[in-house]
């Protein structure tokens, strides 16, 4: 499937929405690259990570833990745990990733945005087109944004003055808001956030988020009670 045929399959409305989403992710990439270099990473590091990992929240967590003095092993483990959600994404989209050599490319393009867009389409052909167009756009925009941010961060040392540090939490919040409309999930998420905040004061970076998982059973209890 080419970019052009995916665009035609989806029509201008949906395609335009995907393009805007990719631009936004590119801008978050700018904040990511800038934060990475101001934390002491070389310019190439966030760009290479963006290409190879291609999962924003785990990458922010990874560089955040290392910058805060955590061990590389803890940073990789925490990033992998954040990315464990991709397992359920793969289970939810059997008609998008089909056997064959393209599977490798399609698999790498699996991320929050491409999966949400594929799930919102009904026909298999449109699901595949939305997934592919969004995934390919992310693969281009996320590393490009990271490069621009890394160069910007090398030139402007006070990136906080531009408010770039507020972008990432705002984006993740925007992505999880639809799921929080479910009552059980919302209770579990709030309890987990409280656990993470309370434990940040004494736990090393990366662990508070893992400790938050203790709140997951709340989502089931509420669902059964309802």
């Amino acid at each position: 499937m080419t970019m052009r045929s995916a665009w035609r399959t989806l029509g201008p409305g949906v395609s335009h929405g995907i393009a805007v989403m990719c631009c936004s992710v590119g801008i978050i990439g700018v904040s990511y690259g800038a934060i990475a270099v101001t934390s002491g990473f070389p310019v190439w590091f966030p760009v290479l990570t963006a290409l190879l990992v291609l999962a924003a929240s785990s990458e922010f967590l990874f560089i955040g833990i290392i910058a805060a003095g955590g061990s590389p092993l803890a940073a990789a483990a925490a990033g992998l745990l954040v990315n464990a959600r991709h397992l359920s994404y793969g289970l939810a989209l059997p008609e998008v990733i089909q056997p064959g050599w393209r599977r490798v490319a399609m698999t790498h393009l699996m991320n929050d945005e491409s999966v949400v867009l594929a799930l919102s389409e009904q026909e298999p052909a449109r699901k595949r087109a939305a997934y592919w167009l969004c995934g390919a756009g992310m693969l281009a925009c996320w590393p490009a944004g990271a490069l621009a941010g890394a160069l910007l961060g090398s030139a402007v040392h006070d990136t906080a003055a531009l408010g770039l540090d507020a972008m990432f939490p705002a984006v993740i919040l925007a992505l999880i808001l639809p799921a929080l409309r479910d009552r059980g999930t919302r209770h579990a998420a709030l309890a987990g956030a409280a656990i993470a905040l309370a434990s940040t004061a004494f736990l090393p970076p990366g662990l508070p988020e893992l400790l938050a998982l203790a709140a997951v059973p709340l989502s089931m209890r509420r669902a059964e009670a309802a």
Partner: protein
Amino acid sequence: MRHQLAVVAAMLALAAGTFAVRLAGPILRSRISFPGRAERLLEAGAIVLLAALVATTALTAGHGLAGVARPAGVAVGGVLAWRRAPFLVVVLAAAATAALIRLLPL
């Protein structure tokens, strides 16, 4: 950067592990079926993890609190997202709010 080789090795491990997790879903799907309860738990786990990440990245810096500007920016972005504002508006409003508060002579 301290121990640069170890950091690069950890990053490559993260990339390889992430690819394996992405690959596991489609492969498992064609062999076994997951009970609905397990799928719900996996989903809730991802959301709880991300909510905790929002809380810590929005409100804390190191072991302490992050001050006023960043939480305020995230809050403005969150309200706009709740009102279903476009993604780009959410992102730019969050950054602009934090930047403007930092300009104030406090």
